């Protein structure tokens, strides 16, 4: 048996246009890159039809080629001498990195070196980086910025469904649904082409959006297309518990499904009895009638009630919380109570954020995981992976610590003293970023591999210029668990090299042999994943290049792959979903009379993550030149702030000044601030690094702040575009 073919995914003829995917988010919109003989940009980008994006692409994708030709593109290694970063040869830079890493480890042990990866790295790079950390450096200290992205969703899916693949179904399945509940997700801005898949639910009045803001996505519920619930920030869990309560109360659960396919329902049912809508309303601020209506709409669309199907989808808005894992658990319980997962045309899933956030954790960037979504602590997993790597299982380090804890330990007594960063911009993207910058400053050695001088690269002792997106070969695993090919259209500029080469060269200096051919690395990754949850062993570049649509698990003996999970049961020992009863604890840094406003952070359409890429694209900077604090007319009036005025926002951890955007799309008790900007404009100066006890996810999405009109008159804001 083979998987369906997608002729547009077929590998390119030599010298012609290149079929690849967008460098940004997990939707992985299909693109065609056509090399340009002249002009400022090396390729022309056009959108390509593909099931996730259906030919659509947002402005970030259309303008992606500009990042290839960023004026400050790193084209040569940089080494800090006398406090200043200056050009060096690869030989000098790599020798230096090797010598200093070796010295640190000789003096302080293997654990004195840490590795931080990124969810934008290809599967091949993620796999090799994990292997490098565990085999070459032999350090347990590896984690990645996907911890800031998907960890709560992953933890909840693993404990309840037994597996975490993002969506358990192809995105196009959403089209037939009668209702889609989106909790804390704003795809209309974060992955716009996805909105096409919501058309069916909207036409049936079933788009249900839970977001403290009337986001672009929440706006799609207007005109009878659905409902928007605007809870108090940090109370999404209460909304979900109340929805479950209504299902129980009104006899709307799928009792046959629950009896056959779930365990723990009695505990969940008893726990949600405490959250009748009128009580929930007092905590979450969503009127009880709206909660009831939402539950009924979802239930009416569920197959048990003869509906066309329903989906529960979650996003970072509810996951980036100290109760994120529990909140996702409640979302899964809601889907299970309605009998959705594993039913055709229905389901539960989180919308993955980063381009390869999924593949990154499947293949070894997470502190507790080995390739194939195996656990570092599992002796069988260690044996299997060690055999593929040709090392003694006993030599593999144990589980490390999640990202925030790793960052906290940097440069402390007994903590790592050297850090390698790949595909992450910690000095902007980490929570409580003031403390993170201080931690980076405590290091003996900071090595950053990047394509541009990101804010983190500028702090480094050694900067290694690497290839990106259109300059490399590899694979990415999309938000729907499908593996797609990233293909090289142009060579990297100057002396920039592929990260696989960089890791191979560093490993060689340590006396280890790592491959740097992406195809060979993928084959090794596939072997390492054999028998794991994320089994890629039936996949190959040949199959992907032939246009096969491959979703994991895709073991060698079931090479057709698995577009839809859970049809016959969950990935738990007894095949049942293990529901977990949870309760609302509330945000770690809740509002007080001194800090009476909730700060919510998030994205704007025109920028991506830390902005290292998009703040270098002129048309995106033009569209969104600076962070704007969104506040309601009511709050603005109280502060004496007009649209465009500067406001000072202060949390327990820091303060910043930005311009205000006065809008009625945000609750009067809330201010929204996008996190794509750096330095004095970094939203993460304000956010808390308190984490979820299960997932290690930091609470990016809510903290308490006070606001005041900025004392100084407005001054022009530098566009932060390098000259």
């Amino acid at each position, binding site marked *: 048996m083979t998987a369906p073919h997608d002729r547009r995914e077929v590998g390119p003829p030599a010298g012609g246009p290149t079929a690849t995917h967008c460098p940004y988010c997990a939707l992985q919109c299909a693109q065609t890159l056509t090399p340009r003989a002249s002009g400022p940009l090396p390729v022309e980008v056009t*959108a390509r039809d593909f099931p996730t994006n259906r030919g*659509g692409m*947002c*402005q970030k994708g*259309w303008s992606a080629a500009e990042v290839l030709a960023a004026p400050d593109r790193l084209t040569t290694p940089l080494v800090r001498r006398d406090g200043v970063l200056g050009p060096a040869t690869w030989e000098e830079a790599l020798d230096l990195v090797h010598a200093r890493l070796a010295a640190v480890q000789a003096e302080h042990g293997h654990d004195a070196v840490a590795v931080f990866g990124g969810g934008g790295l290809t599967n091949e790079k993620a796999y090799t980086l994990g292997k490098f950390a565990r085999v070459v450096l032999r350090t347990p200290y590896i984690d990645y910025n996907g911890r800031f992205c998907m960890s709560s969703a992953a933890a909840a899916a693993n404990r309840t469904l037994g597996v975490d693949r993002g969506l358990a179904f192809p995105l196009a399945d959403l089209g037939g649904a009668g209702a889609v509940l989106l909790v804390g997700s704003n795809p*209309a801005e974060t992955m*716009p*082409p996805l*909105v*096409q898949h919501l058309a069916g639910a909207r036409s049936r009045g079933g788009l249900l959006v839970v977001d*403290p*803001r*009337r986001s*672009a996505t929440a*706006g799609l519920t*207007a*005109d009878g297309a659905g409902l*928007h619930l*605007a809870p*108090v920030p940090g109370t999404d869990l209460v909304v979900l518990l109340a929805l479950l309560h209504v299902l129980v*109360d009104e*006899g709307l659960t799928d009792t046959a499904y629950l009896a056959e396919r779930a365990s723990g329902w*009695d*505990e969940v*049912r*008893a726990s949600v*009895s*405490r959250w*009748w809508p*009128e*009580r929930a*309303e*007092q*905590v979450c*601020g969503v*009127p*009880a*009638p*709206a909660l009831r209506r939402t539950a009924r709409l979802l239930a009416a669309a569920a197959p048990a009630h003869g509906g066309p199907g329903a989906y529960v989808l979650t996003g970072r808005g509810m996951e980036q919380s100290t109760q994120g894992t529990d909140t996702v658990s409640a979302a899964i319980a809601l889907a299970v109570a309605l009998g959705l997962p594993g039913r055709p045309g229905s389901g539960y899933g989180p919308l993955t954020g980063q381009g390869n956030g999924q593949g990154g954790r499947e293949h070894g960037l997470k502190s507790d995981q080995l390739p194939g979504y195996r656990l570092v602590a599992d002796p069988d997993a260690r044996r299997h992976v060690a055999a593929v790597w040709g090392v003694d299982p006993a030599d593999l380090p144990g589980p490390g610590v999640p990202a925030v804890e790793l960052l906290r330990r940097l440069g402390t007594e007994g903590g790592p003293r050297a850090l390698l960063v790949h595909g992450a911009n910690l000095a902007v993207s980490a929570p409580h970023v003031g403390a993170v910058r201080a931690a980076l400053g405590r290091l003996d050695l900071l090595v950053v591999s990047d394509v541009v001088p990101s804010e983190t690269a500028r702090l480094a002792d050694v900067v290694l210029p690497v290839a990106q997106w259109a300059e490399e070969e590899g694979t990415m695993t999309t938000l729907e668990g499908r593996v797609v090919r990233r293909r090289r259209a142009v060579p990297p500029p100057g002396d920039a090299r592929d990260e696989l080469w960089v890791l191979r060269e560093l490993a060689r200096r340590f006396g280890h042999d790592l491959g740097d051919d992406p195809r060979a690395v993928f084959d090794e990754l596939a072997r390492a994943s054999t028998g794991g949850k994320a089994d890629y062993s039936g996949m190959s570049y040949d199959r992907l290049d032939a246009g096969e649509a491959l979703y994991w698990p895709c073991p060698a003996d079931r090479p057709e792959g698995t577009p839809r999970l859970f049809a016959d049961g969950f990935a738990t020992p007894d095949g049942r979903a293990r529901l977990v*009863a949870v309760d609302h604890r509330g945000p770690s840094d*809740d*509002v007080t*009379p001194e800090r*009476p*406003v909730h700060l919510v952070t998030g994205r704007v*359409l025109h920028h991506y993550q830390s902005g290292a890429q998009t703040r270098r694209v002129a*048309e995106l900077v*033009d*569209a969104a030149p600076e962070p704007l604090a969104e506040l309601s007319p*009511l*709050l603005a*009036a*109280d502060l004496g702030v007009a649209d465009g005025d500067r406001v000072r926002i202060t949390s327990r951890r820091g303060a910043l000044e930005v311009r205000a*955007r006065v809008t*009625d*799309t*945000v*609750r*009067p*008790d809330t201010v929204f601030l996008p996190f794509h900007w750096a330095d004095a404009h970094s939203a993460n100066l304000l956010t808390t690094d308190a984490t979820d006890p299960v997932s290690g996810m930091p609470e990016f999405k809510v903290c308490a702040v006070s606001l005041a009109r900025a004392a100084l008159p407005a001054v022009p804001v530098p566009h932060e575009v390098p000259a």
Partner: protein
Amino acid sequence: MTRVVVVGHGMVGSRLAEDLVAADPAAEVTVLGREPVPAYNRVLLSGVVAGTTAPDLLALAGPPHPRLRVLTGVAATDVDRAGRLVTDDRGGHHPYDRLVLATGSAARVPAIQGVADDRGLVPGVFVLKDLADATGIVAAAAGARRAVVLGAGVLGVEVATGLAARGLAVRVVHLGERLMDRQLGWEASQVAVASLRRLGIAAHTGASVAGVVTHRGRLSAVRFSDGLEAAADLFVMCTGTVPETVLARRAGLACDRGVLVGEDLATDDPHVFAVGDCAQPPAGATGLVAQGWEQARHLVAMLSARDSVAGMPTHDVVRVKASGLSVVSMGVSGDFDREDPRYRVLSLKDPERGRFVEVVVAGSRLAGATCLGDAEVGATLSALYTRATTVPDDPAMLMVRALAGGGAAPAREPADLADADRVCTCNSVSAGAVRAAVRSGCASAAEVSAATRASTGCGDCRSVVEALVATTAIPADPTADHEEPPVPDLVRSES
């Protein structure tokens, strides 16, 4: 091991017991529950009466736990405080290191002629305190046409609307001059009376019931204090509760209205605690489950010595659960001095639509509020109140709906879009850029998309682009306009 005995398996006792074994690995907990069923959600009993909640779906009790023993249908009869021993009505003995009384409260049965005989309440007459009461009312309502509810507090109003929803003709008789007099002031009460009338419920304030008339041992009519009689098949008395203190008094613990406890929830015996409706803390009892649960959380933290919990924030938000009638009140409400200089009181009265909103502001905080007929405003007010966040300079802004996150922005007709207005957010394309593309020769939405990238993202603006293509005037001589080629438009700001 610490042996903890909890008397009472209600909403508070069950939560305390479950949370305690979870929090304290040294705790061994025995719960004695007088009712024949495990803990259930008493707050939702009015929903059972209304038929919106199935009685078998109220269960609160969690899964079994090896250190938690729950005995249902077993009542504690005596406490030997010197011997630290509880005796039950089955003759069982339960030694304790700590005893927690969570005995709750009982429905107050007013002294009304004829409501009870030596077998208890006469058929057709009910209180609503436990599951048996609720199922009894439901059974009686099935064959009933007329009901009288005595007492228009929160429960009385919920029962009245519930019975009305079942199709009964309902009268509510209330001794006070205002409905829900603890929560509602005069004006709010008037609006509530009118709202009940719209639901087919007649409300009599300042009235009481003198007696009931029975026929063959069954209720047939209710006699009001003014001498009038009304035929009735069902009479439900919702006249408040009294803390259940019999056991505590018998054990010699200090009691007033309830069992007297300190801030630490301890009685005058340091080994005995009381929580929930049976307890009378220094600041008084609200009768709301939120207070009992907060006390349970507090006591669990203290007994498990995990951490000391400073102060108990108790919220006194009261939300009526009645279909067709939205009532929320909190803090300073009901009959208070509206001339009190500490308060700024604003109100909005709209009896025609059954709406009344009153907010009481002290400084920059919401000290209290009453909201009828607008669930959304009510929800916003309670979220604001429970978090003590800042009230807007003009508190009148709190009284209208637009606050709760805003309504949908009015959609503008494509023809009315200014050139600077953004049409395609995904690709930052303005109406002007689309019009320019049309003028320079793009004849269809697809061609405009190809030239400007408009609607190549989420595709949501395609209909707007189509309308702009249709409404944009094309210059007579297309070649005259060619100095302005279509380019992706870069709009600088939203303005």
